[in-house]
């Protein structure tokens, strides 16, 4: 399981309202029995429990919709995160190896079907051993009927589809309980089928009321509206970058995995081999790095056009320009050279195998410092495109502030305020010099800290025997303990 998924599971568990699992299971049983008392028809009771589960989970999701914005937005990924769905719904973690997947290939469809098996179902735990377990599964006549976990299944389906809905995905997942331990099967098994909007509408067009044979009444759920093109807020844009699967990939995939992904992307989108693509940059390797800086800024801007909107304001554009200039200066001042060179080495390793040998050799001629300079040059070009006029900027922001004071006339009768204003440029000069001094003083310790953490991290990572025994395992264990303490405190 990925790190982020593991961490989110911990958070969900620690901050949900927990009770004892046996109480949960028995309450679940009692709800089913009450429904049965009204319907007097086992097939109907299961259908209604499923419906109640769906509504209950939807209500919860709507209250905490922001959390789900960070979940992956395609149905296949949502199903791959089934264990997290389980924890969200049930709050109980599965044991290692308790959950298994099986893909059922579908030739005529974009997505395959999935069989998800859970070895030990806590809902069915010991069902039938106690007198109060009076719902009789033997009376179920419908071959398609679900089992004891139908309410839980409804909850899982609701959460999965809520995620797809808020991620504005047009696919939906139908989750059905196929095997049930209380009905004599050896495990709990779900079949998950993925439908497009049209198929889903057709599937859900049959009203629950029409499926019931006992004549009991149930309110129909409101029909779901598929949002094709909705206005996206900043948060929506942000979560495109920060969705769980993307963070997980960044944290978990080694360089070779990322290289493969880039190669696939080039093949897929540009219809050419990566080597041919990088060959275009032969002898223009510096431009290649500039393009990275250039594209990075434009890519960030693509999401919500935040940068562009901010830079429309002249004052903001100037401030951003100065911040950028300072960042450019201080990056090389604060980050130790060997750290920069390590990243340069990483760039070479990244290109090795993807780009022609000549390109790799030429990049080797650069230093880490060159990489940073080219990146900043590229980013500066992009910022110019977006509205910062770097030619208008002074050497630093203090000169800009001084300039604003110059044009004003001096009043013959100077008040205390005027005299202070007169002194303002000098005050600015002092502040500037003081800040520069602090910067200079801080340069060394900051270099030490960055260098130390970089090398410390490098040594720690390189000296790990296995994930579980190493630093990562130890951190995981420590966080586990913290969450346990938090739960106990609650």
């Amino acid at each position, binding site marked *: 399981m990925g790190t982020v998924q593991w961490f989110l599971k911990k958070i969900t568990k620690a901050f949900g309202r927990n009770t004892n699992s046996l109480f949960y299971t028995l309450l679940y049983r009692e709800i089913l029995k009450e429904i049965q008392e009204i319907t007097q028809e086992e097939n109907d009771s299961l259908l209604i429990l499923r419906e109640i589960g769906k509504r209950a989970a939807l209500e*919860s999701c709507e209250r905490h919709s922001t959390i789900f914005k960070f979940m992956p937005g395609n149905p296949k990924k949502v199903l791959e995160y089934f264990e997290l769905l389980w924890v969200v719904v049930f709050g109980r973690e599965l044991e290692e190896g308790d959950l298994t997947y099986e893909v059922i290939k579908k030739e005529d469809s974009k997505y395959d079907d999935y069989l998800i098996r859970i070895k030990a179902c806590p809902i069915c735990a010991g069902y039938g051993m106690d007198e109060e377990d009076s719902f009789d599964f033997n009376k179920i006549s419908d071959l398609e009927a679900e089992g004891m976990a139908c309410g839980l299944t409804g909850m899982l389906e609701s959460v999965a589809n809520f995620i797809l809905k808020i991620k504005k995905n047009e696919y939906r997942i139908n989750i059905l309980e196929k095997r049930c331990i209380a009905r004599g099967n050896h495990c709990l098994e779900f079949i998950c089928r993925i439908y497009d909007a049209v198929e889903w509408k057709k599937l859900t067009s049959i009203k629950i009321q029409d499926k019931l044979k006992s004549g009991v009444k149930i309110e129909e759920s409101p029909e779901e509206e598929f949002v094709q093109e909705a206005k996206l807020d900043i948060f929506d844009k942000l979560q495109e970058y920060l969705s769980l699967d993307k963070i997980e990939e960044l944290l978990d995939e080694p360089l070779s995995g990322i290289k493969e992904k880039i190669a696939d992307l080039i093949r897929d989108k540009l219809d050419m081999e990566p080597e041919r693509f990088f060959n275009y940059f032969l002898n223009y390797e510096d431009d290649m790095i500039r393009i990275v800086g250039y594209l990075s800024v434009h890519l960030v801007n693509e999401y919500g056009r935040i940068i562009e909107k901010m830079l429309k304001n002249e004052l903001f554009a100037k401030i951003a320009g100065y911040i950028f200039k300072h960042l450019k200066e201080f990056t090389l001042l604060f980050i130790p050279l060997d750290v920069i060179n390590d990243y340069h080495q990483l760039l070479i390793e990244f290109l090795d195998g993807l780009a022609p040998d000549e390109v790799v050799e030429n990049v080797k001629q650069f230093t880490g410092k060159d990489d940073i300079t080219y990146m900043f040059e590229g980013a500066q070009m992009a910022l110019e495109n977006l509205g910062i006029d770097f030619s208008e900027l002074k050497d630093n922001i203090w000169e800009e502030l001084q300039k604003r004071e110059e044009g004003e006339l001096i009043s013959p009768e100077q008040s205390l305020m005027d005299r202070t204003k007169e002194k303002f440029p000098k005050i600015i000069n002092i502040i500037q010099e003081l800040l520069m001094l602090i910067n200079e003083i801080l340069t060394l310790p900051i270099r030490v800290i960055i260098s130390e953490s970089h090398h410390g991290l490098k040594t720690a990572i390189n000296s790990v025997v296995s994930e579980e025994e190493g630093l990562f395992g130890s951190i995981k264990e420590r966080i586990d303990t913290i969450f346990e303490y938090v739960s106990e405190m609650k």
Partner: protein
Amino acid sequence: MKVLRNELIDSEATMNQMRNAIYHLQRFMTLNGETQIIDKLRKMGANIARTYIKYWKPINLVDLNNIKSVLGTIYKKILNSNVQIEFVTGEKKISVKDNDCALCKYKYEDINVAGCEIIMGMVAEFIKLINSRANGKSSFTLIPSEVQESKTFGHKSCIHVYQFEY
């Protein structure tokens, strides 16, 4: 592989969806003409206690001297709630205040019965069952009186009032 009920005693489950489910069940009951919802919920609680006691019980005997600690233990161990328990002056009543009720959290305009009626039914049955197995050593019984306050009705906490006899 089967999980047994006694294995569930030591683990926890998140109530968020189940809590909502209780109110959807109530709506379903009302729609189908059920009027005795309080009784129904208390009966659900009593059934939970009848099964639960086979796997865990806080003590072998309950009387007026230990009722406060028995209630505190039941609320803590089963519901994960830290409650304030007080005898109601001049009455044979005991009130339990739960600021973080497992079955109530949000105010519902269309609901007239608090989900924690289930808890009241369960707790009272628990006490009854413990003493029924104590060979007549204690005649102390607890009867659910009312949910005086509930988050379901917009209050800040839930207050369960039980009547006792001994």
